[in-house]
Every structure is written in C-alpha cells, then in structure tokens.
C-alpha cells in the first residue's frame, strides 16, 4: 500500500519512476474515503486539487526532478491553523466563517518549493486550545487505535491522519505539547523544533512566545527531512532565528555511543501509568545497550510548569484573539453599536474552551492583577528555563514519558478543564524553556492496545543531536512499524 510508506521510501520509488505521484496521492485519497468516516481527521480536503498537484509533480519527475526538491510528489496534509493560499482556514472555529487564506505560510511555501503535494485541512482543538481535539466546531477526531478514545490534541487530526495512513506526513503546531502529545497517543513521530527554528508567518497565533510549527511522520528520518525543508530565518517573522540550517538527515548515523541522557527525577510522578513507566524504563535500558550513558538529573521547578503555562499562554491568547472581532474577516453578528458587534460576534463565534482561556488571560493581565499573575509567571518561566540550561551543561538530551497515560476515552476529561490541563504535564516545560522535543513510539499498553510515546528533549537548536538519538532508538526497535487495524 503506497499510502503506508515513508517519505524516504516513496522518494526513492518516485525518482526511479516505479510509482507516480498521482498513484501515491490516489492511495491517500482512497484511504481517506475508506476510514475517515470513522476517524474524522480531516475537516475538508480538495481531491481534484491534490491530484492536479500530483500531475504537476509527475511532469517534473518525468524531466528528472531536481536535487533540491526532496518532497517532490509527496502528499502532506495540514493542520487547520496554517495558511495555505486559496484554501479554507478555520482553526476549527466557527468565528472564521468562510475564510480563505490570501497567502501561504512560510512553512507551506517551503513545502511547495520542495515539491510537496499540500492538501487537506486537519481537525484540531479550536485555536489549538486543548489536549483531545474535542474542542472543535467540526466534531471529534477519533484515535485510530481505538475509536472510543481521543487522538490527543491540539493537533489530533494531524496525528490521526498519519497513524491511519491517510497522508504520508502532516504538519501541526505545538504550544504546550500539541504535536508531541497526539503523536504519542496515536503512535507516530512528532517533532517540536526549538522556538525560532521555523518561521511562524502564516501560523494563526495562539501564544506567540510558545508556538512552533512541526512535522508528524512515520519515522524519524522523515521528521529530519521535513525539518531541513522548513527551517530557517524569515524576514516576515522577526522571532525566527538566523541559525544555520544543516541537512538533519546527515546526523542519523545510528551511533550514539558516549552521549549522555538525563532522567529527571521529578517526572516519576504518582499519576504516571504503570505500563507507560515500564515502556519508558525499557527504552532507557535500550539506550544503555546502544552505548549511551544514563544520568539522573533534576529539573526542580517542574511542578510549577502547568500553572506558569496557563497564565502565560492564556494572557498571550487573550491579546492575539482580539483580532477576531467581525470587522475585517470571518463571521459577524451585526449591531448598530461597534462594541456590541465585537462582543456578540465573539460570543457567538468562540467555543467554550476558547472563551475560558480568553477570560482567564484577560483577568491575569487586568489592572491590579498583572504583577501578581503574569509578571510572577514570567519570572518562574526564567527559573524553569534555567533548570533546563543547567541540565544541558551535563547531558546531551533528556528522556521522559511524553504523557502520563495512554489515550483516554472521549468525554472522560472534557467536563474538568484542570484535569485536561494536567495531561500536558510532561510536554509543557519544553515550550516555556524554548528547547526542542520529539516523541517517538516506545511500546503499547496490553488491553486495549494503545501506543505509548517516549519524549526526548534537546538543547536549543540541538535538533541534529536530538534526531540522532531518536533515530538510534527507532533503528533498534520495531514499535514505529506497527499499524492500527482499521
């Protein structure tokens, strides 16, 4: 089945003209037709446009392709938070109405320049706020391994689509774990690059100091390929960083002898599921066999990360989402009074979780509370960041579970926002500290069979080493090759 293959496998077949881009794209579309009724990873997709892009790719392949087009003919689906020219952009919210993007995000422009077939709008929690993809105005996405369970979030559609082989790879965004957590729960690879590595131009902002775009893939090599394509400084995003962009696939040597991996003692918490803990312990032993040195480390402010995050992220969100006011784009609820027009438009357009976060964020920034909440959180953020920088003086990467449990049932946590927030406990610090992180499959629970994710955290702009370490583990195990039965 062509749709089950990786980018690197397909690129080789496409270059040899063994298969056509049209056949690969059709295989993905057929799989969507077969399984997406059960999964609902896609909000929408334009099959004719995807096939037209495939035909263009086939023409370029017939002329021998170009060495700088590492994604020529590869279908990649996109989270509904990234602008793709002339395609709908809703952020899984009602408030954007019939919005169509007038331009491409920089990451999308780079995928297209590399020859990718960019298609589909993948479901997510509204404005990327959530951990289960239950907060979508377009309905639930289901976990391909057990359709009574959530795929994680906020990039739940992106993870489910890759896990269900409805596309070859996908893009998501990660503000507090929204790539790594769903990747773990759906059993694929999810990479959150260092803040500033990939331009955020054309990514609808949730929390501007935390958001990063990243790939979902079927193996680590594909994540390295996509990172190489999308990285780099961009004059249209002044927070993108002018660090050189290496060929990240060159780092995948399989040799990690002598590298030091840190185990933070604060991550062995009471709520950690026994099967998740056993899988992560086994992964650590695997790393020892591969020649890595394991050292216990401490990240003393871990316990404060969730509280810090929910102040900073909601504060930034309340400011960013002020732009959705019914004036320049999206749905409008009319009134003769402009203030009432804003309030009614927003009251009708935003869902419950978005409203909750706007109110919380507005409150922590309001007069009299700013210093007590927002400024305090920014200072604690410094302490959390310093914990990581100190740890990275002695270790090359940090190893943790990605999530405390495997996928939970739909509806299980949706009535209790605080419990939902605590499910991000292992992924949130990475964004606050501005380091990079990846989740790779490291096992399954027994009954039901659900994927478990191993999280590796790397130094700022240390993606090459991070990917090398993740790849070496993947080479030594077969977890990533298992497929959900659909």
């Amino acid at each position, binding site marked *: 089945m062509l749709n089950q293959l990786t980018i690197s496998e397909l690129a080789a077949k496409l270059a040899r003209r063994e298969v056509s881009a049209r056949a690969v794209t059709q295989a993905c579309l057929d799989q969507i037709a077969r399984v997406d009724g059960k999964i609902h990873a896609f909000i929408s997709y334009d099959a004719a446009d995807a096939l037209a892009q495939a035909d263009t790719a086939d023409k370029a392949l017939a002329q021998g392709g170009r060495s700088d087009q590492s994604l020529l003919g590869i279908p990649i689906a996109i989270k509904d938070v990234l602008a793709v020219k002339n395609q709908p952009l809703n952020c899984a919210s009602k408030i954007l*109405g019939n*919005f169509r993007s*007038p*331009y491409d995000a920089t990451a999308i422009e780079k995928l297209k320049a590399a020859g990718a077939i960019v298609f589909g709008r993948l479901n997510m929690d509204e404005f990327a706020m959530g951990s289960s993809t239950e907060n979508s105005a377009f309905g639930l996405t289901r976990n391909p391994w057990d359709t009574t369970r959530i795929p994680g979030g906020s990039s739940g559609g992106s993870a489910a689509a890759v896990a269900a082989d409805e596309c070859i790879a996908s893009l998501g965004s990660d503000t507090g774990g929204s790539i790594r957590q769903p990747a773990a729960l759906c059993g694929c690879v999810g990479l959150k690059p260092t*803040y*500033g590595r990939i331009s955020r131009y054309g990514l609808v902002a949730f929390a501007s*100091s935390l958001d990063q775009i990243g790939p979902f893939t079927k193996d680590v090599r594909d994540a390295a390929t996509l990172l190489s394509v999308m990285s780099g400084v961009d004059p249209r995003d*002044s*927070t993108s*960083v002018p660090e050189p962009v290496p060929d990240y696939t060159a780092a995948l040597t399989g040799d990690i002898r002598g590298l030091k991996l840190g185990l933070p003692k604060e991550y062995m918490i009471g709520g950690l599921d026994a099967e998740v803990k056993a899988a992560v312990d086994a992964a650590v032993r695997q790393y020892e066999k591969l020649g890595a040195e394991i050292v216990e480390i401490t990240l003393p*402010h871990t*316990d*404060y990360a*969730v509280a*810090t995050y*929910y*102040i900073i992220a909601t504060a930034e969100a309340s400011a960013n989402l*002020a732009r959705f*006011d*019914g*004036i*320049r*784009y*999206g*749905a*409008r609820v009319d009134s*003769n009074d*402009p*203030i*009432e*027009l*804003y*309030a009614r438009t*927003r*009251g*009708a357009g*935003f869902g419950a979780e978005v*409203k*909750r976060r*706007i*109110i*919380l964020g*507005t*409150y922590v920034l*309001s007069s*009299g509370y700013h210093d*007590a*909440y927002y*400024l*305090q959180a*920014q*200072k*604690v*953020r*410094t302490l959390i960041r310093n914990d990581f920088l100190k740890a990275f003086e002695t270790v090359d990467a940090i190893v943790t579970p990605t999530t405390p449990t495997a996928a939970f049932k739909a509806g299980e946590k949706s009535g209790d*926002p*605080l419990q939902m927030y605590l499910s991000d406990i292992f992924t949130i610090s990475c964004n606050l*500290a*501005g380091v990079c992180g990846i989740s790779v499959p490291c096992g399954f629970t027994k009954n039901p069979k659900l994927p478990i994710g191993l999280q590796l955290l790397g130094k*700022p702009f240390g993606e090459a080493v991070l990917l090398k370490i993740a790849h070496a583990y993947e080479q030594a195990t077969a977890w990533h090759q298992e497929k959900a039965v659909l």
Partner: protein
Amino acid sequence: MASAEIDVKYVAHLARLALSPEEEKQLGAQLGSILGYIEKLRELDVTGVEPTAHAVPLVNVTRTDEVRPSLPHDAALGNAPQKGGGLFIVPKIVE
C-alpha cells in the same frame, strides 16, 4: 496574590465577549478552581529573578525601510463580512 474570585461579567466586558448567564456561572466556577491551582506559584521566591518574555534572546530585529510587496487591496478585503467602495463597512462610530 489576589483572591481566587473572578468578576466574570467585568472581565468579559474587558474582553469584548458576550456571555450568557449560564456561561458566566459555569466559567466562574471553573476559573475559581483553575486560579486556586495557579496560586501555587506564590510559593516561589522570585526576588531578583528577571522575567522571561521570549525564550530566545533576540532584540531590536529591524529591516531596511524600503517598500516591499504586500497583500493586494482586493485580497485584503476578500474575507470581509461587509465591504463597499474598497473599504470595510462598520457601524457608525462617531456622531
């Protein structure tokens, strides 16, 4: 730190967000428990700690002051809920 009580109606006004009475009540209760959890940050002594606004220390990122291509007028208006004469149409703001 402040008490864990939010005047939801007042904050919703600041946020320009119309809420139903049921939403106000539900949000009040949920935010009370979230704020209660957030109070734990008060345990930490942050005397002398500088705040972090951005994890990557970049300052004064500027570009040369030159005209560059930007979104065409029609495209910028393309998603407007109401438009006319090349402009966004809004309710009357000044008498």
